[in-house]
C-alpha cells in the first residue's frame, strides 16, 4: 500500500493542526546533552469533536527512561482508546507502571478537548499545572493539593477537572524543562506567562514555536522540554462550527 497525499489527506493535514477550530501545536526539545529523553507530548483524535492532549515526563535520562516513556505514552493511548475518562486513564497508567516494578515514576497530564462544548476535561498526576492565557490575563490551573506522580502508589487516582476554554484563549501544557531551565521555577513560570501572553497576542502564528523562541529554549536546556498548545477559536468561528 502507498499512503498517498491526495486532496482528502491534505484536508486532514489541516485538521490535524486545526481541530474543530482549535489550533493545536506541539514542540519537543531534548536536552542538549541527551540523546534520549523522557518527555513526550502528542495529540490524537478520539471522535469527530474530541481530541486528546497527552503530555508527560518520565523521571531520568538514557535508554531505560526513554523506553519507559514509550511504554507510558502507549498506556495513555490505550486507556483513551478504551473510552476511559482522563482520571481513569491515568489511574490505569499508574497501576501499569506500579506493576512494572522497575522504579519508574512519571508526571503526566491527560485531557480531552471537546471542541463543541469548548471544554478541557483533564487529570494531572504530579505534572506542572496547565496555563491559560487570554484577554483576562494568564493563570495556572491549580486545584489545591497536586495529585501523586504515576508509579508511586497503586491506590493513587488523579482528580478529574473540567474547565471551559473561552474564545481565543490559549491553553499551554508543558514539562518542567520549560520552567526549570534556569533552575528557578518562579522565574521560569513568570517567563512562561510572558511568553504565553505574547503567543496569545500573536494569533496568526503557531503558539508553541513562539513560546520556544521567546524563552530561548532551543538548544539551551539542561533538561528535556515539551510544549503543547491549543488556541480556542474566535466567537465568530464558534457560531459557524
Amino acid at each position, binding site marked *: 500500500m502507498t499512503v*498517498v497525499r491526495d486532496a*482528502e*489527506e491534505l484536508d486532514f493535514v489541516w485538521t490535524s493542526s486545526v481541530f474543530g477550530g482549535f489550533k493545536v501545536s506541539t514542540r519537543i526539545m531534548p536536552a542538549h546533552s541527551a540523546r534520549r529523553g523522557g518527555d513526550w507530548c502528542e495529540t490524537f483524535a478520539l471522535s469527530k469533536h474530541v481530541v486528546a492532549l497527552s503530555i508527560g515526563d518520565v523521571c531520568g535520562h538514557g535508554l531505560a527512561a526513554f523506553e519507559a516513556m514509550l511504554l507510558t505514552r502507549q498506556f495513555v493511548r490505550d486507556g483513551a482508546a478504551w473510552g476511559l475518562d482522563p482520571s481513569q486513564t491515568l489511574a490505569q497508567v499508574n497501576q501499569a507502571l506500579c506493576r512494572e516494578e522497575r522504579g519508574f515514576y512519571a508526571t503526566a497530564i491527560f485531557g480531552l478537548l471537546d471542541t463543541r462544548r469548548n471544554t478541557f476535561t483533564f487529570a494531572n498526576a504530579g505534572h506542572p499545572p496547565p496555563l491559560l492565557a487570554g484577554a483576562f490575563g494568564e493563570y495556572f490551573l491549580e486545584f489545591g493539593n497536586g495529585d501523586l506522580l504515576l508509579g508511586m502508589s497503586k491506590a493513587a487516582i488523579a482528580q478529574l477537572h473540567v474547565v471551559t476554554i473561552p474564545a481565543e484563549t490559549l491553553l499551554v501544557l508543558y514539562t518542567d524543562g520549560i520552567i526549570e531551565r534556569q533552575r528557578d521555577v518562579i522565574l521560569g513560570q513568570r517567563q512562561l506567562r510572558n511568553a504565553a501572553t505574547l503567543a496569545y497576542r500573536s494569533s496568526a502564528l503557531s503558539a508553541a514555536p513562539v513560546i520556544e523562541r521567546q524563552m530561548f529554549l532551543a538548544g539551551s536546556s539542561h533538561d528535556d522540554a515539551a510544549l503543547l498548545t491549543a488556541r480556542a477559536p474566535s466567537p465568530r468561528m464558534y457560531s459557524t462550527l
Partner: protein
Amino acid sequence: MARIEPSAVPLLAESLTAAGQPAPVFVRQLAVTELGLLAPGVLILDLDGLETDPLEMLRMLRFVLPACMIAVYTNVLEEPWALACHMAGANCLLSKASDAEQVTLGLRGSLQRGCYTDPSFTAA
C-alpha cells in the same frame, strides 16, 4: 503497509502471523483518513524515500490511530532516525536487513511490551 516492496511481503506476512496477527492485509494505496476508518491493530510502514515529510506522516497516522501498533520498516539504520520515529509516534523500528525471525521478535516485542527498536539501529 506503506510502499512495502513486493519481495518483502512474504517475510512480513510470515512474521505477522508468527507474532499472532491473523490474516494480514496488503493494499496498494490508501489515504490516511481511510486508514483511520479501518482502524488496524498493527500497521507496518516503509517511509524510505517518501516524498512527504515521513515524521509528519507518522504524526498524522498516530493522530487517527491512537491504539494501533505502528512499526517502521526501514533501511536507514541510524539511531537518530529511530529516535525521531519513536518520538513521532512509532512503537517499533524494524530493519529491512533482518530475517523473518528477527522481524517476528520485534513485532512480538512491540505487541507485548509496547515498543521495540531493532539492535541494528544502536549498533550502526
